[in-house]
């Protein structure tokens, strides 16, 4: 029987998971090897439905899917469901902004650093650190020194492509 009254605590989030559409782990926080069976179970119970909340193995699971990605935030069954939902929304919205609304597996994998850093801004040791996706994006989105360099590279590439086209048209 679950405790009727939750011990007041800041430790709200037990886990954050991101699985792909085969139920394989793309990201887990905290990463525990033994957790995989639980992940499979969660995936099997949730991936066919678009309902956003369930009670599984005595834990409250809130989830959301996007194309080929499944996002889960897991907490104790006596946790405030809306708090867990706030974490899920914050994570999803942050990623959505960072991936320019293109929240799908490939884009995510190409931007794993962004994911790692975003989660690091959202939770710390199970405590919700930030719930505002704007803030998360703000802290994660740092301008590197070599930005101009890359942009230059792109325009260079573009320039050379143009020239090549011109050249080929001339032929």
């Amino acid at each position, binding site marked *: 029987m679950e405790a009727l009254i939750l011990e007041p605590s800041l430790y709200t989030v037990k886990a954050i998971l991101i699985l792909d559409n085969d139920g394989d782990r793309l990201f887990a926080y905290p990463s525990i090897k033994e957790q995989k069976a639980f992940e499979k179970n969660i995936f099997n119970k949730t991936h*066919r439905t678009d309902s956003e909340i369930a009670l599984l193995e005595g834990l409250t699971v809130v989830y959301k899917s996007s194309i080929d990605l499944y996002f889960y935030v897991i907490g104790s069954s006596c946790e405030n469901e809306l708090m867990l939902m706030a974490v899920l929304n914050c994570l999803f919205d942050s990623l959505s902004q960072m991936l320019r609304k293109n929240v799908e597996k490939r884009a995510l994998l190409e931007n794993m650093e962004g994911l*790692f850093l975003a989660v690091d801004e959202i939770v710390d040791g199970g405590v919700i650190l930030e719930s505002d996706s704007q803030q998360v994006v703000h802290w994660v*989105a740092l*301008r590197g020194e070599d930005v101009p360099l890359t942009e230059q590279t792109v325009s260079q590439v*573009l320039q050379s492509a143009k020239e090549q086209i011109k050249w080929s048209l001339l032929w």
Partner: protein
Amino acid sequence: MEGAPLAGGWLDLLAVCRALVATQRSWNLTRSGTGTCFPWIRLRDPACSLTIGGGSNPFQHLEKSAVLQEARVFNETPINPRKCAHILTKILYLINQGEHLGTTEATEAFFAMTKLFQSNDPTLRRMCYLTIKEMSCIAEDVIIVTSSLTKDMTGKEDSYRGPAVRALCQITDSTMLQAIERYMKQAIVDKVPSVSSSALVSSLHLLKCSFDVVKRWVNEAQEAVSSDNIMVQYHALGLLYHVRKNDRLAVSKMISKFTRHGLKSPFAYCMMIRVASRQLEEEDGSPLFDFIESCLRNKHEMVVYEAASAIVNLPGCSAKELAPAVSVLQLFCSSPKAALRYAAVRTLNKVAMKHPSAVTACNLDLENLVTDSNRSIATLAITTLLKTGSEGSIDRLMKQISSFMSEISDEFKVHSPRLPRPPSALSSPLVLQGGFEYKRTASSPCWPRASCTSWARRGPKTNNPSKYIPLAVNRICFVNTGAVSALAKFGAQNEEMLPSILVLLKRCVMDDDNEVRDRATFYLSVLEQKQKALNAGYILNGLTVSIPGLERALQQYTLEPSEKPFDLKSVPLATTPMAEQRTAKQPEKVAATRQEIFQEQLAAVPEFQGLGPLFKSSPEPVALTESETEYVIRCTKHTFPEHMVFQFDCTNTLNDQTLENVTVQLEPTEAYEVLCYVPARSLPYNQPGTCYTLVALPKEDPTAVGCTFSCMMKFTVKDCDPTTGETDDEGYEDEYVLEDLEVTIADHIQKVMKLNFEAAWDEVGDEFEKEETFTLSTIKTLEEAVGNIVKFLGMHPCERSDKVPDNKNTHTLLLAGVFRGGHDILVRSRLLLLDTVTMQVTARSSEELPVDIVLASVG
């Protein structure tokens, strides 16, 4: 632009060009949209991404050794930030996938990484912090980065400071903490919220190992509570509470201070509500309750829900106090947000357990949720309605359930096409509600009957039997006779639910299936009598007579019509338990009916009031005299929770004597205490009489249950005339020595059969498991050993383990029983035959005492 071909020719080049233009454009869009550009998106080399093609996972085939090899790049100068950050990502990805890093390799990679602090690339630096955190418990000497982190934490770059604090606290121990204490205090009150939050949360983590240091920071935390930033306020409040939670007065002050000033953060409010409701458990405080109630009017749903949930969970909350909470939950029921609907109905379900009437007002809202697309919500709505609905609404509900069931079964077809009928209706949504218990019953491979019977056994005894009802209801939806029986058992044991059960059974009377109809009719008429004895005899225990015997007797009865009604007592009792016809052991079910008779007889004796329910009566009376003697005395032992009653059936075979005031005096060898004797007033020639002796079980050493009593019959003899039966008025005292009476552990254990011993074994769990090894020096065969153990413990051999296969020198005997007081006791006995038999006994129970007694008595 994804996957553009690069096969060659100018058309392809044109495509490349378009793609590049598109890339550029979307960049610009992002940049103007958010004002920032994401470095990792930039990291993606456009030319490269075009060649990758769709769908591949760049991390899929990562080799740990190869990645660690790559980490050597860290030592190169100048540092290539992009490349290095990518390698760190790979390492983190591997760790995240559960890959194990050895200490040496982790340390090596960690030291290489420290070089990267020379670069000022923000992304790379942030990745370094993450790597430090991940490796803090794998690699050695991680503290060498302390000074770098301290520098970043106090530096100018705000984006470094928060994460640096978090990484630093991760690698810090109590001794080092003092060195950075000054910086931590500053960080807690820093004006940058991310720095302050990071410091507060890290302090919270540090409380576990460095409480004494961290508690010196409360003044700073106190200051941070008044921050304008909602997260800082939340973290500061949390830290304060965790530091002070053992000081009731301090917590009390804290609550009154912050409730007076009000808080900004909804998270902080939730925290305060929890603290207040915790405090309410210990002190009576209407200000505390008023605070929680005032939160019902907060503008954040999260806070409103937290407050409602806190009120619902308060022990001893009155209906009036509940009402405002219930009405906000009612509003939430129609929220477009599934999480909020779920939270609301889950909480209402809790209310319904204690105060069903308080939820009645929400019935309409709940019924709308029965068809909710989220099955957890629908299931919770149904279970709540079953608790609160009137008879009429249950009827209406049934219709809605049927639509819901079909939805689930459709889904199940995809899951498991092998089973003819959809047990997933039980395993998927209802499991959510009941958790473990459901799963075990529902996942039983022979689900239709076995699981029904197991609920019927277990269900009514659980704390919340109503949780199980929907299960049985589902079963009826699938036309299952077992379900009807299960339902009847609920009704027989739980008066509260009886009205609902009767409604359900009434529906079954109109079922298409003969057997369902018949059973429903039968149970209905029994239950409507509302007599406990009938319930026990016809629903809970079922028939104890032998089925062929009943058939014969009934046939006989129809052949010879008579005025007398058919007497079930004339039918011979079943001599073996129904489920296992094979064993010729003394069956428990015979004991059950004999026991009922005994129970009645004993209940009529005033001295035996208040002994509690009769747990067991010994299966056969023991003769305490030799046959053909003057007096024939046979003893039946009755075990009660804390007492034993010895019933002595006496027959006087001397035709010239009448015995009066007959008692059997007992001298126990163990700590049993004789409490009273109930004499047989008169024992005329050849007319059996009964006297009783009541003893209390040993209290000081409860394991000493085995005992030998020396017995002496005491009585007054009056001579009488054998022909006329006339008795002298004068008599004389006499006594008569009887055989010793043995009480063994078997008298305290009732046999039960576990069809699936392993499941029962796991169910009991190993909390009170004990194991000991014995040598049975006098026993030469395994059969003999098994026979002795079974007889000695008086438990039921399960899974035919009482049969020893030929030519084996090892065997495992599985025994099941219920110990006095109703605790399951299971014994697994491994036997090894060499010259003598060696036996390893493992006992499990839901209590410690039975295990101790079993092992003590074997030894």
